[in-house]
């Protein structure tokens, strides 16, 4: 692929003076440099800042070194644990409902039909809309006074609710919004997975006399198991990354009832102005997300596939 070595020996390629061996490094250099400066350096910086008690508006030079105190404080900080608990509850409800709805709908509607592309276009719209706009739309719909949801519930005899002003109802509201936005995503990737299954296996199971339920439970679902796992992990990571919709919809309130971990970090840093302590909590978030990402990598690194040279 590269220049023909002078003496026709493969070792010639390894000589440091052979410039062509350096070409790949020139190609990856800009991207790697930007990712190091814009992603890796900030993460290291978050570690570093977590050892200092730095408040917004003060000079970092004056910030006292506090060692591991932020981390020990975190262990007994009810607010941190509460936001983790909110995140896990949010993840549990949204992901299980989205997976259930998305997978069932995909199984029912997987057969190719005329006009499928129109429907698919519609289903990806919620994912393309800016999270800020999603938050604004649903804040309007859930509005206690003029919200459309209260109006239609009123028609079937349900009293108007102050959706975003009550802890349980606000939690329900963010779960509901997330389900609206993300169920189509699960639906689409599961359909893609089902349609990519080799038809011979499916035919064989039909010929063997498997009924509809057996066919789904013992043939189809096991075959798309890895897709389901990856979708699950991706959604779980999203739950830990999410904050924009909640920031607009509820701001984390009332109280801390809808304050997911990411939003908690943000509020800590820029609302209560404890930059150092917020960094310490974000170290915890990095650890969680990295573990989940490693899970996805273990499921199969697409950049290391077998077809590779």
């Amino acid at each position, binding site marked *: 692929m590269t220049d023909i070595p002078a003496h026709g020996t493969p070792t010639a390629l390894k000589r440091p003076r052979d410039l062509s061996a350096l070409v790949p490094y020139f190609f990856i250099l800009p991207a790697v440099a*930007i990712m190091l400066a814009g*992603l890796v350096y900030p993460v290291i910086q978050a570690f570093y800042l977590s050892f200092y008690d730095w408040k917004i508006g003060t000079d970092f030079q004056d910030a006292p070194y506090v060692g591991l105190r932020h981390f020990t404080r975190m262990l007994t900080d009810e607010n941190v644990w509460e936001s983790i608990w909110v995140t896990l509850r949010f993840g549990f409800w949204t992901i299980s409902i989205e997976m259930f709805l998305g997978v069932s709908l995909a199984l029912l509607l997987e057969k190719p039909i005329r006009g499928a592309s129109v429907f698919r276009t519609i289903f990806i719209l919620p994912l*393309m809309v800016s999270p800020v*706009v999603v938050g604004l739309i649903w804040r309007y719909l859930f509005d206690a006074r*003029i919200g459309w949801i209260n109006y239609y519930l009123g028609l079937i005899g349900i009293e108007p609710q102050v959706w975003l002003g009550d802890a349980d109802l606000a939690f329900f509201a963010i779960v509901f919004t997330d389900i609206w936005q993300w169920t189509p995503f699960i639906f689409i990737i599961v359909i893609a997975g089902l349609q990519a299954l080799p038809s011979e296996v499916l035919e064989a199971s039909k010929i063997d006399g498997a009924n509809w339920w057996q066919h789904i439970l013992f043939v189809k679902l096991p075959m798309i198991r890895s897709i389901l796992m990856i979708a699950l992990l991706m959604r779980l990571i999203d739950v830990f990354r999410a904050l*924009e919709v909640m920031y607009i919809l509820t701001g984390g309130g009332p109280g801390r009832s809808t304050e997911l971990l990411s939003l908690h970090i*943000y509020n800590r840093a*820029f609302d209560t102005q404890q930059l150092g302590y917020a960094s310490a909590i974000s170290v915890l978030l990095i650890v969680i997300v990295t573990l989940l990402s490693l899970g996805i990598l273990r499921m199969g690194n697409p950049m290391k596939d077998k077809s590779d040279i």
Partner: protein
Amino acid sequence: MITKQINNPLHVWGHYGALIVLALVTLAPIWIMVVTGFKDDVLVQQKEPVWFFFVPTLENYEYIMTRGKFDRYLWNSVIVGVWATFLTLLFGGLCAYALARTEFRGRVLVANSTLLVRMVPPAVLAVPAFAMVIKFSLDADLAVLIFFYTALNLPFAIWLLFGFYKQIPVELEEAAIVDGATPLQVFFRVLLPLMKSGYAVAGIFTFRIAWNEFILALLLTGRTSRTLPVGAAGFITDTGVEWGRIMAMGTLIVIPPLLFTFFAARQIIAGMTAGAVKG
């Protein structure tokens, strides 16, 4: 058995019926935003929802365009989106090419780390980014935002483009090399033309994120460098809760992503499913 089911009219109608219901549920909130943007204040404040029939007004749009700093926000968003997309595609493309086509020490390390940093949460970046801006006394400048959006998008773009490069047969490049082309010529003359759709997908995803991103934009921009989502969120506090104007602003923000969706739905779905289905 399968063909029977498809021809059974009951099944077909049930299938379409279910899809139509789902599509309406998906579309309803977006539609409500669009119509609310065209309602006057009396109609917005009215408790009984109006879906279709009313006298539309442009007063919300007029207010946004003339009183707000809409033109400024729009310009900022366009600049940030276009630059972040350009840089991501340029550098991400080169990197993906090297990972897919060449063998070098550290290749697997770079590939794995790229996938690992893809998920860095924006909340984790928030404080350090804020600190970096202070430390290196960077102004609240669009360049800072462009830089972070490029960094955030590179991992996904590299990974996506890597997959596209892998699909192109190596023989094409080998033939070009035999004909005496340099590596750069191979890249620009042979591969790029075949990579159009890959770059389109990566470009749409990058632009969408740069266009929609809110938290970093909120932190890293000043009064004159705000982007559209920050401007829209500002409507909540700036003017009380003026739903007509907010929804008009939301509609304007959603237009570009919506256009992408209608013109490139197939590519977007390919990008979304690539991770789960191929992996």
